[in-house]
């Protein structure tokens, strides 16, 4: 196995290197275009959401592609990150005037809370398998969305005021804020009047950090254990890999990154409702991951960029664009899974099936 090992290791790190280089190159090119004024308003408005969705897709790929558990509630963790991030940023606005520092703190807080929620959700979820696991993640995603819809949060000189609006009859006035206090989240309306401090550079840095975390996790001993669980749960357990521990590591990492992406996303819009993070958003990210290739990190990035821009590029077709998007989605799935085309692709691909199957076994 010796020489093969070194070869696959080299291939892995080469593909990782290309991923990093590609992202950095894209950042430089886009920043140059932006500074020259080659991007119009709506185009440059897409940059931060694309970065957020890249982080979402890469982190979901960790759960779906590397751990092998289908999650349909990833947007729920994004919403936890988004709203805790917004609350943090808006509460600290007087204490820390510097936007980049506030953004960093908000992203960390968002990631922290999302990882706590991820851990709590993970305890029941990771005991289940297959479609049952998928439906429970979907359920948790919807629950998180509804819980946030019930939140009314305000901030004044006495600190945070939080009302949990179960009956649906309370409004922001019930917070009893002091003079100079501000309402941060207004229940179903979501966060309103948020100071937008997210920018493309922050998005780029977050993408790079995500890549470092995820790629290093995958190539580490822990990552190999996680992939062993994906490939054969029973075999992995019988060689002494603790299933719960490694599943939890992958899942919590994934949710923390989703929370970070959410915080950045939340601070990019002045108004944001919890309804934005519904089942459809989870599905959108899942589509990025599956079309990019399960377990393939740079594929996720590429798919996110292409599929996020596609509906915008189709804006000329106005009302037909989502229809075209749907047709493209179906056709791509049909062609990439066509047995005849598949054998053609694998003949062309420089990374053949042989290395692919040995990729996870170097240890």
């Amino acid at each position, binding site marked *: 196995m010796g020489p093969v090992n070194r070869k696959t290791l080299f291939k892995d790190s080469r593909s990782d290197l290309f991923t990093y280089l590609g992202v950095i190159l894209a950042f430089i090119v886009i920043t140059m275009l932006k500074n020259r004024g080659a991007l119009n308003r709506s185009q440059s408005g897409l940059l931060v959401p694309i970065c957020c969705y890249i982080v979402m897709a890469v982190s979901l790929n960790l759960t779906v592609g590397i751990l092998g558990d289908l999650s349909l509630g990833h947007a729920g963790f994004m919403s936890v990150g988004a709203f805790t991030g917004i609350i943090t940023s808006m509460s600290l606005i007087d204490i820390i005037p510097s936007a980049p520092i506030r953004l960093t703190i908000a992203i960390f807080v968002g990631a922290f809370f999302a990882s706590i929620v991820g851990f709590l959700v993970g305890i029941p979820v990771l005991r289940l398998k297959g479609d*049952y696991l998928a439906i*429970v993640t979907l359920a948790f995603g919807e629950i998180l969305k509804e819980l946030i819809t019930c939140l009314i949060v305000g901030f004044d000189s006495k600190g945070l005021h939080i009302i949990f609006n179960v009956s649906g009859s309370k409004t922001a006035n019930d917070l009893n804020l002091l003079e100079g206090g501000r309402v941060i989240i207004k229940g179903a309306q979501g966060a309103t009047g948020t100071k937008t401090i997210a920018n493309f550079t922050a998005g780029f840095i977050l993408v790079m950090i995500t890549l470092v975390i995820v790629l290093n996790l995958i190539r580490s001993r822990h990552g190999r254990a996680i992939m062993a669980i994906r490939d054969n749960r029973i075999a992995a357990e019988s060689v002494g890999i603790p299933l719960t521990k490694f599943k939890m590591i992958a899942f919590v990492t994934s949710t923390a990154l989703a929370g970070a992406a959410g915080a950045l996303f939340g601070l990019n819009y002045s108004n944001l409702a919890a309804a934005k993070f519904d089942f459809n958003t989870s599905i959108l990210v899942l589509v990025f991951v599956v079309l990019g290739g399960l377990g393939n990190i740079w594929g996720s990035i590429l798919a996110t960029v292409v599929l996020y821009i596609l509906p915008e590029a189709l804006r000329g077709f106005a009302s037909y664009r*989502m229809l075209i998007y749907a*047709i493209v989605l179906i056709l791509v799935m049909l062609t990439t899974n066509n047995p005849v085309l598949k054998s053609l692709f694998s003949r062309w691909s420089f990374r053949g099936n042989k290395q692919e199957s040995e990729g996870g076994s170097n240890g």
Partner: protein
Amino acid sequence: MKFLAYLVSGISLGSIYAIIALGYTMVYGIAKMMNFAHGDVIMVGGYISFIAANYWGLPTVVSIVIAMLVCTMLGIVIEGLAYRPLRSAPSLAVLITAIGVSYFLQNSALLIWGANPKAYTPVVSGTLRLFQGQLSISYVSMVTVAACIIIMIALTLFTSRTRMGKAMRACSEDKGAAQLMGINVNFTISLTFAIGSALAAVAGVLLCSFSPTLMPTTGSMPGIKAFTAAVFGGIGSIPGAFLGGILLGVIESLARGYISTQLSNSIVFAVLIIILLVRPAGLLGKNVQEKV
């Protein structure tokens, strides 16, 4: 009395979920896929019956039959064009295709019928008043419950007694072996989709009679909830889907009445999670031990 009213409305809502869940569970049982487009077939059924009844002026029964026919065709076409080529593909690829089909149906409906909600006329009007008017039960709910029970019994008899039903069960056990026994697997799967979609049309009509607004997104949330109901009762099991649907409807109605309107979906999902933790294969599902 209030409790009875909530219970009645819960049972009739649950019957609708149960009819959708029956379609879901049959398709899942045989094709082993989450057919996310099922909820949108419901919506199409609602629109077709709406148009047949309101624009063409056809009698209600005829409009329901037309909706069932159109949805049956739609189900067969969707299966043939989108799912059949992916029979041997990984399950996630099929899932994404189903999502694509779902987007396709929603956006087609948006283009054809517009985004404005249509006011659906319930198929049966009037209410039955009991206890000097303290408890009112609409005739629609009674029809819904009756339809649900009839469909459940018919499906159980069909799968257990008829030749075609046996073929379906055989395909659901083992497609390869079924094919070797001379069962036409493709035809059987098509038939399952046809039955499931016809049920979706019925569910669409009843759903729109229950809450009379019709939009391109009408079917998605009931679709998700019905899938939850199917999992709740044990996916692949026909009595399970029935039980799951009714329970889900009752829990939702009671939660809405006594706890919170805003959190009713959360409570439904929380109950689902708890049930799945205690019985990982659902209420009536068989827990298959995994072998090495």
